[in-house]
């Protein structure tokens, strides 16, 4: 075959070369198409702000991802109606992280390298958040880690100068929730924990509060992300006879666990709680199974003018009430754009400086502010009780706030957090 001569071979070779070139050209053209069709080209760069939105639209946390993006888009609308931020209109580019850090990094690179964004807003899962945070620090892109609650986003050596966290940390949630639970329901706790950073730091934060109250850990289990059957774990829990089972689970995982908690009759034997729960999960859990005490960054029942306005706007645009995911998406995007506006420049370095130390109306009773040494948004943090059965009058009103702690009371102190953010 190697040394054949003649037109037959040349035609075949020609076709082969065309084939390879075609595939190569397709790849190149396709890459180009994606660039062209994803947004206006460099010609317009001076006139507009490109913001990347990275949220999960598939995978176990998909519902929350949608909500976060919805909230963020409301903030974009608000700014664009007033002429944009720093005089430039905002265009957003959404990509799906699939609740997977590898995918998120690929998509993050696409947004940064291909589309050319200088800011990324979003993410739900903390493992995704940590990976995106490292990427953004490397690429000098601002990252609003909207929905990641794991402590290490702002604590220790995984925190970065280019990353800001609009939501509460696990420690804040635990301190607002755990003491309430310990006092009301007992101090023997079992832990079921999602096996990744958010689950781990959530569990650890709850354990710390428990220890401070003189409580006891009677057992614990780690479950892989995406587990659907908790039956064997729940049998272990029941056998240990705790007062409370703390489930550091989220999304579909939390839904499955709580449903099975009810199905195995454990609701009448012990209390349940954890760092997070929210509207999009409670809807799927169903009002008959809804139960427990949970950390919440916000709820529609927060009685401030800002919250009511936001809730009304959200309902008008999307036809349903917002969960705190939507709230976080809104605050994260709104703060980014406000920072750009106040810095009067799209330069990320200037925006970072504008954000550090800035205090603002975070739609809560007390003002929120950005702590300059760890980029944690200090804000009111709540403990919510899940309503169930007959007391649920409105299908979207599934939680009742039973406790609130001010941000400074519950966030890490300087002594507790040895973080040292990089120089700009």
């Amino acid at each position, binding site marked *: 075959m190697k040394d054949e001569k003649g037109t037959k071979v040349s035609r075949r070779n020609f076709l082969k070369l065309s*084939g*390879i070139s075609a*595939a190569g050209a397709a790849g190149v053209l396709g*890459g180009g198409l994606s660039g062209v069709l994803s947004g206006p080209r460099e010609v317009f760069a001076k006139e507009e702000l490109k913001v990347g939105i990275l949220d999960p*639209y598939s995978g176990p946390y998909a519902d929350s991802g949608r909500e976060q993006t919805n909230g963020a888009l409301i903030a974009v609308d608000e700014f664009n109606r007033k002429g944009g931020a720093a005089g430039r209109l905002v265009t957003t580019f959404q990509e799906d992280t699939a609740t997977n*850090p590898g995918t998120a990094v690929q998509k993050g690179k696409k947004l940064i390298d291909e589309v050319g964004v200088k800011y990324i807003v979003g993410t739900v899962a903390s493992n995704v958040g940590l990976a995106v945070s490292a990427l953004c620090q*490397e690429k000098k892109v601002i990252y609003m880690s909207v929905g990641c609650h794991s402590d290490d986003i702002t604590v220790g050596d*995984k925190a970065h100068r280019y990353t800001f966290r609009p939501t509460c940390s696990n420690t804040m949630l635990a301190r607002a929730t755990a003491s309430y639970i310990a006092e009301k329901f007992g101090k023997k706790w079992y832990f079921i924990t999602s*096996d990744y950073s958010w689950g781990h730091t959530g569990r650890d934060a709850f354990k710390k509060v428990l220890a401070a109250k003189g409580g006891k850990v009677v057992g614990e289990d780690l479950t892989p992300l995406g587990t659907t059957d908790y039956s064997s774990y729940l049998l272990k829990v029941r056998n240990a006879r705790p007062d409370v089972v703390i489930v550091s689970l989220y999304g579909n995982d939390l839904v499955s666990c709580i449903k099975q908690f009810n199905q195995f009759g454990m609701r009448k034997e012990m209390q349940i709680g954890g760092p997070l729960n929210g509207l999009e999960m409670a809807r799927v859990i169903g009002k008959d199974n809804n139960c427990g005490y949970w950390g919440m960054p916000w709820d529609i029942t927060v009685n401030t003018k800002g919250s009511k306005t936001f809730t009304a706007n959200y309902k008008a645009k999307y036809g349903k009430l917002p969960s705190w995911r939507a709230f976080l998406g809104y605050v994260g995007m709104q703060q980014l754009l406000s920072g750009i506006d106040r810095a009067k420049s799209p330069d990320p370095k200037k925006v970072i400086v504008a954000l550090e130390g800035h205090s603002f109306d975070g739609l809560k009773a007390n003002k929120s502010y950005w702590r300059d040494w760890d980029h944690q948004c200090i804000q009111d943090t709540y403990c919510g009780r899940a309503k169930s059965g007959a007391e649920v009058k409105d299908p979207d009103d599934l939680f009742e706030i039973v406790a609130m702690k001010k941000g400074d009371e519950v966030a890490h102190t300087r002594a507790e957090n040895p973080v040292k953010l990089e120089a700009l």
Partner: protein
Amino acid sequence: MIWSKKDILWIGAVGGLFAVLPLLLPKIGSSIPVGTEIMIWGIFATGFNILLGGTGILSFGHAAFFGLAGYATGLLILKDRLPLALAIPAAVLGAFLAAALIGALIIRKRGIYFAMLTIAFGQMFYFIASQWNSLTGGLDGLTGFKRTVFLGFDIKPEVNFFYFVFGFFLLTLLFVRALLNSSIGKTLVAIRENVHRAEFLGIDVKKYQHFAFVASATFSGLAGALYALLLNFAFPELLHWKTSGDAVLMSVIGGMRAFFGPLVGAGIFVFLRDIISTYTIHWALPLGAIFVVFVLFFQKGILGIFERGNGR
């Protein structure tokens, strides 16, 4: 000559096309890392095809070696433990050794059982990586490392890294082509065509199959090391059987019997994933459908279409 004039011309042409990619890509709104990624998958798939197209053996576990080398690279350059120039060969060596051991264990099985065994081992690697939090970061993945300098050359910028990978890409094409041209390569084809006849001819079939397994896995490892450096991140999915499936996909769609088939498949895969995902998250549908069509009707893949009619 281990390469014919045609081989050199073809590899030169492909090399030339890729060499100018960094100039073309940004001009049309794409990015250089996309080109780097195509080359990395090209290395993975071309090496993998030594086993699939060249020897006729299906493995769904090569991602284990891809991911193993990826994690190894990350761990070795973390906190500047080793310079990159040592870390990459070490990681590839790790993949080589792992494949030699596992291969020796499982090569005596054939067909479906062999494929299932590769899945089993791949998944074991995946679960170990997902749960060994202290070493691998578990489901958070391995962060904290980044590519810096290789023997004095700064490969941090995307364009520098592109050409760095390009070097390995060319070496892979040359090496695999030489292998397939050699008597070893021809023996593998003989085994692929008729195992029993090869045995009757006195060929130590198991030894050659083992060799193909290890050689293909070593290239998977090289690709994995480079991929971890592209993203500055290693994560459990790199080891999952679905990632192995991606390599199979690329080889089948591009054409298992054609040398550049896997590379074409890699280009199409990255193209579909990157482009279509801008409009819809449902890019797996056209990809899966195309794959089905090729498995049924175009068993020689895209490049097979240009061989004698429609490649049946």
